């Protein structure tokens, strides 16, 4: 290459540069316009799932509908006794959703400059009760029988070069009052206080209006912790456990258990018997990465991204016993929440 400066940028090079600019920016522009058109078709076209007009009465599973077409990304519901049947789709978009005690917690993304996040607490008829701002990307939400709303968000720095991210888990009532950020609770690991800075808390599961289970992580370790709102404490139950889920009869806790590390990271399901302390691991060939939800006292639900279809996912069911195999329960669904009339 000759040492002529940019002042002497040759005619040929200028033409090549212009050609490249026209080519790549043109191609990207065309792709973007097509993406916009595809999005229009996807959200206004016929749904990939069978729809029904009215919400199912009685026991049901509420979830985020990920079927391409009308109602994509919105809260939807199927009857508990016909989970693969027709779904009722609302006009309420949610990234994560949970329903209990006559309240709906709908964590959502608000597109804009900048993009922001919020948690809309709705009543059972879908009327907005309260909007709580979220510090980051929606991740987990659960509601207690008495109406406490737990949310976990991912808080990221403005640049991934900064490499910082953390979780923020808060427990509030629908009116915004409550217990605040669980990171401020006193944390005990095997009797010693955890004072590390890099601790993160995520994935609340309520036992009562005072007691709950949650994940605490620090320095690459995770613990299942049992917490109390009245004493503002968290105490470790066992290590390597994430995203707990307490069974409806309160006798067992199901969670994610990590095997492998780095690029080979993989999670299996584990179920802890709270009476005997016995842990049962349910190996999953393809792993999973979700907070489990109990369908009943013997079966668990979890979401799995659909391979090859970005933005789509399915909900699987699995028996809470070793050697069990997952089965597809609800197609094109995410963030399942079981609503029983007993609640």
């Amino acid at each position, binding site marked *: 290459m000759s040492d002529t400066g940019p002042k002497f940028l040759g005619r040929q090079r200028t033409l090549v*540069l212009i050609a490249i600019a026209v080519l790549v920016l043109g191609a990207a522009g065309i792709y*973007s316009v097509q993406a916009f058109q595809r999005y229009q078709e996807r959200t206004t076209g016929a749904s990939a799932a069978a729809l029904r007009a009215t919400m199912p009465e009685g026991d049901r599973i509420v979830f985020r509908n990920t079927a391409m077409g009308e109602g994509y990304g919105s809260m939807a519901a199927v009857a508990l006794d016909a989970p693969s049947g027709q779904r009722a789709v609302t006009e309420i978009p949610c990234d994560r959703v949970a329903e209990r005690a006559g309240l709906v917690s709908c964590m959502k993304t608000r597109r804009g400059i900048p993009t922001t996040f919020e948690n809309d607490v709705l009543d059972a008829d879908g009327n907005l009760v309260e909007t709580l701002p979220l*510090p980051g990307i929606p991740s987990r939400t659960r509601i207690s029988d008495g109406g406490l709303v737990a949310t976990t968000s991912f808080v990221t720095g403005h640049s991934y070069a900064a490499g910082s991210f953390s979780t923020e888990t808060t427990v509030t009532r629908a009116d915004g009052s409550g217990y605040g950020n669980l990171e401020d609770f006193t944390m005990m690991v095997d009797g010693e206080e955890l004072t590390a800075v890099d601790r993160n808390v995520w994935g609340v599961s309520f036992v009562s209006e005072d007691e709950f289970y949650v994940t605490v992580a620090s320095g690459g370790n995770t613990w299942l912790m049992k917490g109390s709102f009245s004493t503002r404490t968290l105490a470790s139950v066992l290590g390597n456990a994430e995203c707990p889920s307490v069974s409806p009869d309160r006798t067992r806790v199901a969670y994610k258990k990590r095997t492998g590390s780095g690029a080979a990271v993989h999670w299996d399901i584990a179920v802890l018997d709270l009476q005997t302390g016995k842990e049962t691991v349910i190996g999953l060939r393809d792993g999973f990465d979700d907070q489990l939800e109990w369908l009943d006292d013997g079966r668990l639900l979890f979401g799995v991204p659909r391979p090859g279809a970005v933005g789509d996912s399915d909900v699987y069911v699995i028996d809470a016993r070793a050697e069990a195999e997952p089965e597809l329960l609800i197609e094109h669904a995410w963030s399942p929440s079981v609503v029983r009339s007993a609640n």
Partner: protein
Amino acid sequence: MYLSLSDWRSNKASNTSRAAKVAFKASPTVIALGIVSMLTDISSESVAAILPMYITGALGLSMIAYGFFEGLNQSASALVRIAAGYAADQTSRPKPVAVAGYGLSMVARIGLLFATGFAGIAAIIGVDRVGKGIRTAPRDAMIQQASQPEHLARSFGLHRLLDTIGATAGPMLAFVVLLLVPDGYRAVFVLSLAVAILGVAVLVLVVPNRKLGAKPVPAAQSRTAAAEPERSIQVLKFKPLLRMLSRGRMGRMLCAAGLLGLLTVGDGFVYLALMAHGTMDYFWFPLLFVGSNLVFLLLAIPLGKLADRTSRAAVFVAGHLALAVAYLCASGGGSLFFIVSALAALGLFYAATDGVLAALAGQLSPEGSVSTGIGAAQTVVAVARLLSATGFGVLWVLFGSNLALLGVAALLLLAVPLAWYLLLGKASRPIEENS
């Protein structure tokens, strides 16, 4: 302190005359490299702004999994930086090394279109970071080479101005695309790739591939440069290289930069402390960095100019006083006055230090080791800031954000005179003579 002050005055006197004598002329190479950086930053920051949402929202992965890779990637990037500088010096041609760095990040954008598992995504981010590590030192060496020695810091300021425009525009572009196409992550990736390709094309086609040491022909040095265009330059082997980096003015500069870097806790903490006062809605959080970036890009050239006219070392060290002001304001309260002052001070700090450090390191490096010298300075600062962020986290938890920031501000006020002594004190010969 008064001794060093007098020293600074004498430097100032000698340099004012020199910088005034030679009219500043923006080098086309510096502008071209600035445009390359701007395009690359639009490309990388647009992806960075939406990547967490893509990973969690579209791919359904948890960020926790992704977090495990963070530490690894950061250390890889820091190591690669100095190694790439050394490689650029060894071959005495920085451009191919820079092309490799920018090219690697461009290839990572292609990978992003196909990766759906977090191992794939993490690998891609790793490749992108390694690319960033590779390109920085050789690129800054090219800026140094193409600049008039009298206006070195100003040239770096010009480059950082264009760079920061890209870093600010990137996230905006991504948010606009997502506003129009809510699940248009791929559209952002495709746009990002297009802009990255354009950046590499500008680098390859527009930026000249000069041999290190073969100076361009600026007004002041046309005679010497013309006399010895292919002068053989001495490339330092490993041992003399270590000596070069650890002793003399270079060694003292790295010490001072490392010391100050240890007290640079990261803007994230400043923004978080401002948020912690509870007067600001979450909505404003992502816009805080836009505010400090705007100040940075407004002041990058004026402060570079000031550094050239007075003393680059003095402006670099004194710039950390602005950082102390930013900490004090962030801990002071959540009123609009403190928020605006903190952001302005933070922008001022970057304008006084970012490009000026590269200019200072380039100026102190012996000919033939410019890339290594700049790479070493940037590595020292990056590693020191990484340590500082970790250490500051402890203080934050133990004492709360306000007290922790006050403490670091106090330490900074102690460290600034020390750094001043190291760089400008009596032991240090006037350092502005050799460019």
